[in-house]
Each structure stands twice: as structure tokens, then as C-alpha cells.
């Protein structure tokens, strides 16, 4: 079974509550992710706690994408 990544997204530089989302691909620095209707760029990815079963638990820092 493919891995699942449960991600805690924390938004840098603004008063934003962040988001928790499951994804089937590990986010990488520089990736762009949609949280709700807004796009963010991944700045940092850290394993938050040890994996359990097929689930990996990540802490990802993002900031609003600037085009």
C-alpha cells in the first residue's frame, strides 16, 4: 500500500492558523501547495513523529507564493 503523509502546515510571516492535510506524496522544499483557495510555497519539511503503519507525520513550513 502506498504511503500516506499527514502534514501539519504552518504558515510563516502572517497570522494564519495553518492546515492539516493528508497527501500521498511527501512535500519537498520549493513545492507549491494549495491550502483552501490560496497557494503557498514549501520552505521546510521535518518528520514530526515516527511513522505508524502506512502513515508518516510531517511538519511543513510554508509561505504565501509570490508571483
Amino acid at each position, binding site marked *: 500500500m502506498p504511503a*500516506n503523509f*499527514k502534514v501539519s502546515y504552518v504558515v510563516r510571516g502572517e497570522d494564519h492558523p*495553518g*492546515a492539516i492535510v493528508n497527501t500521498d506524496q511527501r512535500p519537498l522544499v520549493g513545492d507549491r501547495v494549495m491550502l*483552501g483557495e490560496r497557494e503557498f510555497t514549501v520552505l521546510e519539511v521535518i518528520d514530526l*513523529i515516527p511513522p505508524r503503519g502506512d*502513515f508518516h507525520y510531517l511538519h511543513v513550513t510554508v509561505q504565501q507564493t509570490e508571483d
Partner: protein
Amino acid sequence: MDLLSVLKNAELFEGVTPYELDALTKICQQRTYNAGDVIAAQGDVGNELFVICDGFVEVLHSDSPSDPSPRAVVNLGQGQIFGEMALVDRGPRSATVRAISKETIVQVIKRDDFEELCEENHHLGYIVMRNIAADLSFKLRHQHLTSQ
């Protein structure tokens, strides 16, 4: 995505057997919400657990019933659950949950159906309750990280 695939990708059901997962699909009910729809309101009596299949919701907390500007606590996306506190402790809803995506699809599990299933199958009950505890723990960790 079919219901079985959705449930397989939700941490709530990590560790249940295919037979148990099949039993869970039978007590799920799908609902769709538009952006701005309130799915659960703080203070209300709640007897349902929600699993997000698609879209995003925002979780809002008010310090008092007269609080005019509730604070956004977290946004939740695919695979996440909400409503689990009221399911476990039977207290009022601890927060308001509002859809923020154009089309937010959730699976709803009623407490009575869920408890009946857990009584019939203690392994399933143990696994799901453990996963609810793990999910609450993860939400706390997220809150700690966002408040740093």
C-alpha cells in the same frame, strides 16, 4: 474516488482489517457543502463524526457566545476528521466548522451506529479509538507549532 479508497486514506481507519473497513462503509453517509456553509456550530449538541473526503474546512473558536469575531484555529483538508470530541465525550461542539472550498465532501458517521459497531467488534473499537487519540494529539502538536 470510491468510498473504500477514501476511508483507506484516512488515518482514523489505519490498522482496521478489510472486513472492518467494509463494515464502516455501511454506516457512512456522504454530504456535500458549499463554501461558507456551517457544518457544525460551537455549543450545539453533536452526535456525528466527519471525515473530509475533498475540500477544506476552517475550525473557528469563540471565547464566549457573544464573541463577534471567532478565531480561526486550524484549516483541515482531505483525510482529516472533526466532530470527534463530541463523539467521545458527548459534550457540546467545542468549535464551529465551516466549509471554505467551493465543494467540500464529507462522510458522516453517527455516534449510535459507531458505538454499536465498536460493541460488536472490540478490535475495531480499539483501533479507531486509538486513532482518534492520535489525531487529537496531532492537532495539539499542530497548534503548538502554529503558536510558536
